[in-house]
């Protein structure tokens, strides 16, 4: 067995004439945090959508723990161990924080409609186990105080964390985070970084992280993949990436010179 949990090979996806992802290959090391960066429109979110089967690849393959994910439905991909957050937060808005986190756990539970109709003891046991596990996850992320609040009424920072909590509740081996620190200031970003590292340690997950906060990426990622216009521009350790002339030119440089990319 290789030490790469996720292996992406020659992945291509076109939308009409646009090659959103163009022959991309990279690995995400087991139990590591891999950064996925690149300018706006580079195709990062599309990579997440391909891994989670929201889109079908035009060509190429995606393997998780040695198994090809081709042909699976999104919910099957989730069950085989991938979960994600969304660039634009997608919570179950009119449900409580607790219900949001319980949903993936209940989705995996086994009792059928008939025992639910009659509220059998086994159905109730599953329910209370799900509640306990959801509370444990919320406590770890630090949002248990908001457990009974309606998701849409929560402050932005808590909503971001709630999305991470809900993704962990899927019991993933691979967790995909799409710009979790978007819209956060430096202090909040640093705190989120600590949360992500703790999540990796406490829940034994491999993390693939898209972020525009380069400092966060440099701080917590062991390995960084840089994309530009759908293709791989560079990959390596934070130090290698920082020194890479192509990356400095195409991405870091442009940001430094006033962030005209956005």
């Amino acid at each position, binding site marked *: 067995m290789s030490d790469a949990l996720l292996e992406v090979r020659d992945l291509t996806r076109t939308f009409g004439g646009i090659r959103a992802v163009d022959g991309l290959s990279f690995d995400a090391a087991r139990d590591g945090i891999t950064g996925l960066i690149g300018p706006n429109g580079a195709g990062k979110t599309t990579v997440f959508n391909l891994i989670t089967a929201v889109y079908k690849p035009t060509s190429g393959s995606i393997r998780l723990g040695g198994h090809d994910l081709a042909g699976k439905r999104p919910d099957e991909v989730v069950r085989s161990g991938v979960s994600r957050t969304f660039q634009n937060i997608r*919570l*179950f808005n009119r449900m409580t924080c607790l219900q949001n986190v319980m*949903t993936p756990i*209940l*989705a995996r539970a086994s009792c059928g*409609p008939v025992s639910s109709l009659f*509220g059998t003891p086994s159905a109730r046991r599953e329910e209370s186990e799900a509640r306990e596990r959801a509370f444990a996850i919320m406590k770890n992320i630090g949002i248990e105080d908001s457990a009974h609040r309606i998701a849409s009424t929560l402050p932005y920072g808590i909503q971001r964390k709630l999305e991470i909590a*809900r993704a962990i509740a899927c019991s993933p081996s691979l967790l995909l985070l799409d710009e979790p620190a978007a819209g956060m200031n430096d202090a909040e970003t640093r705190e989120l970084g600590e949360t992500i590292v703790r999540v990796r340690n406490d829940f034994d997950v491999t993390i693939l992280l898209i972020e525009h906060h380069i400092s966060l990426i440099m701080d917590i990622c062991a390995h960084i993949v840089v994309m530009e216009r759908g293709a791989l521009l560079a990959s390596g350790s934070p130090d290698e990436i920082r020194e890479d002339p192509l990356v400095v030119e195409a991405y870091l440089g442009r940001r430094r010179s006033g962030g005209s990319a956005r």
Partner: protein
Amino acid sequence: MDYYLNIVLLAFINMIAVLGVAVFTGFTGLFSLGHAAFIGIGAYTSGALTYHWNVPFILAILAGMAAAGLSSLVIGVPTLRAKLRSDYFAIAILGFGEALRVCFENLSITNGARGLSLDELSGPVWVSGALVICVFLTRNLLKSRFGTMFMSIREDPVAAEMAGINLFRTRLLSLVVSAMLCGVSGALLAHRLAFIQPVMFTLTQSTQLLASVIAGGMGSVSGPIIISFVFTSLPEALRWLDMWRLPAYGLLLVVIMIYRPQGLMGYREITDLFRRKAQ
């Protein structure tokens, strides 16, 4: 007295159907302008059984329920596969309802457009008993993992799928449950009115069911039930208004939508209100 009792029983029967639409539309977030078809199937299945073969009433009700559930699979299986396009279902069920009415009108077993005259079997015990059982079981289901899954699909199907939920199967379950409730309602209705005709199960009735759920509050069981009682009894209570009855009814709907756009109960239950006061 009999007059009022009859109104109350018809309101109870209507509540069971509204409960079905509450599961499908209020909790799962899918719209239907065709659930009257399932009421019709429940009514005709049970009616044909008691009329032609003297089948015991309880078996006729269960058969009506099962027939409605099975027929919902016929429309649900092909249309609910479309992941993010619930409009396929909405259109298909409209056509299904119309096709069904034509069938009822032309079959000999339904006695065609002339209708079936039945025995008045749905007495107070049957109707209130059925209502209590239906409310109890539906509430259990909605409080279970399936209720949570239904709501998560209503809130965001993409995120629900990313929570590991099979959208197709879960939506189909919601449809079958709601159709079965409508089937029970139809069986009771047929044997309350003691007469059924194909024209009784039309778009107007489907619209009323949907209006009850929206005005009562999507995501609430008690809200739609209360509203459906008001809606069924109001036309009778407002008889003195004569021809202004229907406009008054429409006005009430408009007033509710202006002052409580989330519906009477919104996403809560009436029991929550008492609980809050007690704290």
